[in-house]
């Protein structure tokens, strides 16, 4: 098993964060992983993306030529990266902010109104966790329990007040 995942969005939308959470969870489940962010003069509102590779075997190359799964949190990310998905792959689109669908007919498209659902839960910033919930339901790439555990570690101490909304967001597509 080797899966190549690509997450893209505007800086601050949490695309890099959910990529990292999947990488961490996969590692905790005994897989080999790499997480490679774009870096540069990135800022909130600019573009940001990351590549995650998950495999049963050691991973030679952290860079990918094509993705099995693409997650786009905003429109420029869809336009720019949809061509990198393999035929039969999956594109997750944040339909709250992306008014169009993919032009690809050879891939599965999953539209997730991530911001709408997050808003209903009372925290717009949990939109990435809503997206993560949809990814877990669709792909089962890592166990929900492992992610729940990650969230509990991430939102502890001063940040503990954000945990309930994020746990709710994680449930949005599951149980």
């Amino acid at each position, binding site marked *: 098993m080797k899966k190549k995942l690509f997450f893209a969005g505007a800086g601050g939308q949490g695309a890099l964060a959910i990529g990292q959470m999947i*990488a961490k969870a996969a590692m905790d489940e005994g897989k080999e992983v790499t997480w*490679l962010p774009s*870096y*540069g003069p990135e800022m909130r509102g600019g573009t940001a993306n990351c590549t995650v590779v998950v495999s049963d075997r050691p991973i030679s190359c*952290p*860079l990918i030529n094509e993705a099995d799964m693409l997650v786009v949190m905003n429109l420029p990310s869809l336009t720019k990266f949809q061509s990198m998905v393999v035929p039969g792959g999956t594109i997750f689109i944040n339909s709250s902010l992306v008014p169009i669908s993919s032009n690809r007919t050879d891939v599965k498209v999953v539209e997730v109104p991530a911001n709408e659902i997050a808003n209903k839960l009372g925290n717009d910033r949990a939109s990435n966790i809503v997206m993560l919930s949809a990814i877990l339901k669709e792909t089962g790439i890592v166990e929900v329990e492992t992610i729940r555990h990650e969230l509990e570690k991430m939102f502890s101490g001063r940040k503990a007040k954000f945990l309930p909304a994020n746990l709710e967001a994680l449930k949005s597509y599951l149980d």
Partner: protein
Amino acid sequence: MMSRILMKGNEAFAEAAIRAGVKCYFGYPITPQNEIPEYMSHELPKAGGSFIQAESELAAINMAFGAAASGGRVFISTSSPGIALMQEGIGFIASCEVPVVILNVSRGGPGVGGIQPGQADYFQVTRGGYNGDVRIPVFAPSSIQECADLIYECFDIAEEYRNPVVILADGMLGQMMEPVDLPEARGITPVEKINEKKPWAITGTDNHPGRNVVYSLRLDPQVLENHVHDMFERYAKAEKELVRWSDQGLPDAEIVFVAFGTMSRLCVEAIEILEERGIKAGLIRPISLWPYPEAAFDKIGKNCKVVLSTELSMGQMLVDVKAAAKGRWPVGLINRTGGMVPSSIEIADRAEKALKEAEK
């Protein structure tokens, strides 16, 4: 398995350095290594060490000089133009036989250049911009685990050889995350114990008779020549004992890639792509860039048609590859520069073309 943690290369360098018993870290911010001073600023004091953000790279390297001359384990990190600024200090530290571990998380040059990954500091770190007869051992990791393992060991190497040691990483290694098993914490050597390990260190005269002097100026040419010969005795030992590389597929390979750091990982995937095309390719991955692993080239088999230095520069390691090849095979270059990184497909395509050229 569960003991592994997911870390950025920069964080792994920093944490492994702390675990190696670093007493002092000096830094000045520069992308793509900023996670290191950030990490050191909050973690090193907890471990009993000292973090100082210097006012410039010049200040940082000279603070490192002073702290290391007084016997502390010293770690310093920067990126390409920062190393350029530190050259004078590095040369002085080497001439004074003081151990310091210096990390270059390199980026595209020349000049202030860009901030994307580069390997065009190869000459800078293996040849240096300092004056005089100086050699600096240079190690190039290619995974986050190796980042942690190498830096942990480099402090011992620097102290054994009483010389600066450089680790050459690149922006991609600094920024990416992989699982890492961290080495155990060794703790900081207490000041009163420093002279047991480092009798030359300037720790004050309370602990021993006489006084130690760390100095660079030797006006008597015979004294200076003797000093350089002393240094080169250690360098000769380094050339025997510090040579490191890994390789794959050399006995059967038609194409042999030579690549270090990030580029070696792209080459591994290019080898898989070439295999699908029915072409056998192999890899020499130098881990020590000085001393250069020339012996690795003796493992190349009879099928080899071309050796390709594959690097993020206009062909700097190429010089060492040609020297190591000793005319036995045609030597070519696959490269991008300025912060551009080729895809594994581009590497495979260019290698296939080079093979066809070589077979003509």
